[in-house]
């Protein structure tokens, strides 16, 4: 606790440096972009606005929409020059936003709420993922079909803010689990039967199991071998909102930045919608941005990621209030830092995302017809 406060304190040092740097910078104009209606692409782009987007992790299909918007020139059309900053160990997008290291950042809602309590004044301007990608995976022959079956079992979770959905389900089903096990970021504990139910993202770790060879058959593990609990499922319903787009409250309050944000969202949404149809092209873009990524794994990931975004009930990025409330309610119960904290609705705003959706006109902003493709996974995800 003390160390993290100390570190957070240190993180403010660069802010002073930035303020000093900004004092010497007189180029403050917005280059004559008529912010007229604040949505459509600027009629004439003399000099694109440079902005940075901080991801939570390396390039992968989870971020396909952003890479496609960049590499296909959608950001350029909106007179933006977007630098995508890849995440890594120890990089917390919320803190990068708070220290001015990026204009936009992607973060899970509960983690962002914790950062807000820690002093990061950030707000959600678009909730890109409407569904949670978290699963709890067991072997089919274990008899585990609902959280109620965890009674006496070893239940794995990742910690670091990834565990709230698991804890909420345990409480909701009032089960006495045998042991809550800290799981590493792989699925090995499940494969070696050290735990009975492993936490997994549907777009990543779950696929990794299906890319591994079952020593008994010599073939890849099959979905039938596994029993999956989906936190989005109505019978569980402890899902919490994940990848959303956040900005620093001070930054968005500056004149002209709302308009920049709207343009950013417009191009970003365009990127995601583009992937609905141009699926293979989007996978290609991702692979071009990561030379060691496996193709079938990224195909699987994009397929599932699109399923987390679409169908988007209010149009892509526009917050689903019901799910926000569910996330906040669970966060208030399960997250130590948020117990007894009142989380007001001004933590998020929908006007910018709505303007971006409107600006996209006829595009398929809800993706109502989205259906998952059949992806054939290869050994090792290659």
């Amino acid at each position: 606790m003390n160390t993290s406060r100390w570190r957070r304190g240190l993180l403010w040092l660069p802010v002073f440096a930035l303020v000093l740097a900004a004092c010497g910078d007189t180029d403050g104009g917005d280059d004559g972009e008529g912010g007229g209606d604040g949505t459509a692409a600027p009629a004439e782009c003399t000099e694109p606005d440079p902005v940075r987007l901080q991801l939570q992790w390396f390039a992968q299909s989870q971020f396909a929409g952003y890479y496609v918007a960049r590499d296909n020139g959608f950001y350029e059309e909106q007179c933006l020059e977007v630098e995508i900053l890849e995440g890594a160990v120890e990089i917390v997008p919320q803190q990068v936003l708070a220290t001015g290291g990026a204009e936009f950042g992607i973060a899970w809602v509960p983690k962002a709420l914790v950062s807000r309590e820690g002093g990061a004044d950030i707000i959600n301007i678009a909730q890109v993922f409407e569904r949670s990608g978290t699963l709890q995976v067991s072997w089919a022959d274990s008899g585990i079909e609902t959280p109620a079956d965890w009674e006496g079992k070893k239940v794995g979770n990742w910690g670091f803010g990834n565990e709230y959905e698991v804890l909420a389900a345990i409480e909701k089903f009032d089960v006495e689990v045998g042991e809550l096990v800290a799981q590493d970021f792989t699925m090995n504990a499940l494969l070696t039967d050290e735990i009975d139910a492993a936490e997994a993202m549907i777009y990543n770790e779950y696929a990794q199991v299906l890319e591994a060879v079952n020593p008994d058959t010599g073939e890849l593990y099959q979905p039938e071998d596994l029993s999956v609990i989906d936190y989005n499922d109505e019978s569980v319903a402890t899902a919490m909102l994940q990848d959303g787009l956040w900005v620093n409250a001070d930054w968005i309050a500056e004149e002209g930045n709302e308009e920049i944000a709207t343009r950013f969202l417009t191009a970003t949404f365009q990127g995601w919608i583009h992937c609905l149809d141009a699926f293979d092209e989007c996978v290609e873009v991702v692979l071009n941005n990561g030379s060691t990524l496996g193709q079938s794994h990224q195909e699987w990931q994009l397929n599932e990621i699109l399923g987390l975004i679409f169908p988007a009930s209010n149009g892509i990025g526009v917050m689903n209030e019901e799910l926000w409330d569910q996330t906040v309610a669970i966060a208030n119960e399960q997250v130590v830092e948020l117990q007894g904290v009142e989380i007001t609705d001004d933590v998020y705003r929908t006007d910018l995302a709505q303007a971006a959706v409107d600006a996209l006109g006829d595009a398929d902003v809800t993706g109502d017809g989205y259906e998952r493709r059949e992806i054939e996974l290869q050994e090792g995800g290659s």
Partner: protein
Amino acid sequence: MGGANRRLARSGLSILAVVVAFVLLWEGYKLVWTAMGWENPVSPDDRTMPHTWDIFLTLFRPAQRNGPPFILVELRAALMTLREAFVGFVIGGAVGFGLGVLFVRSTMAERAFMPYVVASQTVPIIAIAPMVVVWGGRIDLPQWLSVSLIAAYLTFFPVAINTLRGLRSPQPTAMELMRSYASTTNETLWKLQVPAAMPYIFTALKVSAAASVIGAIVGELPAGLRGGLGRDLLQFSQQFTAAPEKLFAAVLIAGLAGIAFVGLVTAIEHRWVQANRRLIG
């Protein structure tokens, strides 16, 4: 020349022997532990301990479908990491040497700063690295340079300590002789103390060369730097469930990178020894 060739052949053979022995140990362990049904200390199954030939073959399979082979991709990554390591090694070596000289000149400075120099090495690199990256980012330092600074952080210490030790190594009589020639402090430093310290410094540089590669790999992680070994190692460790042999293959490349760097320093040391027989003899 024939002697040199024979020496090279002999060292090549001994390296090969070690590799063969290691492969036999690895595969033997798998065989025996599987047959006996033992699980400890390490399970012998193919997911935990892939076959050595699978690891080897992975090097020549494409890293990405239809892409260049793994070994090419990772050698390129190793080259980038080595570049960061090298810059860090040079910075760290210079700082370490400077500190050594400062300390040998002023006992006051030694007493004042040495505790901090020592303390700096007890702070884990994984705590320092993110700070360096954040600070470097604020002052618009290129990311790879931040990584080099992290590598430098690991390299200056052995050089500083050994330089100090080496500069103090000349016999008192030799120091007195220099004084009797009325040589200045600088002349004594460059003509007597530094040559005397070179064996110490080379020893430190070899330690530092290996440490700088580790520093660069660790530094790449919080920097989120693409294209280096650190990021690839992390990515493969995440994919360990599905493709464990890739992680082992990448570790192999990382090890080779370190060996190559230390080898380079050793070669330079040999050259120096050859050129300065007169001094050492």
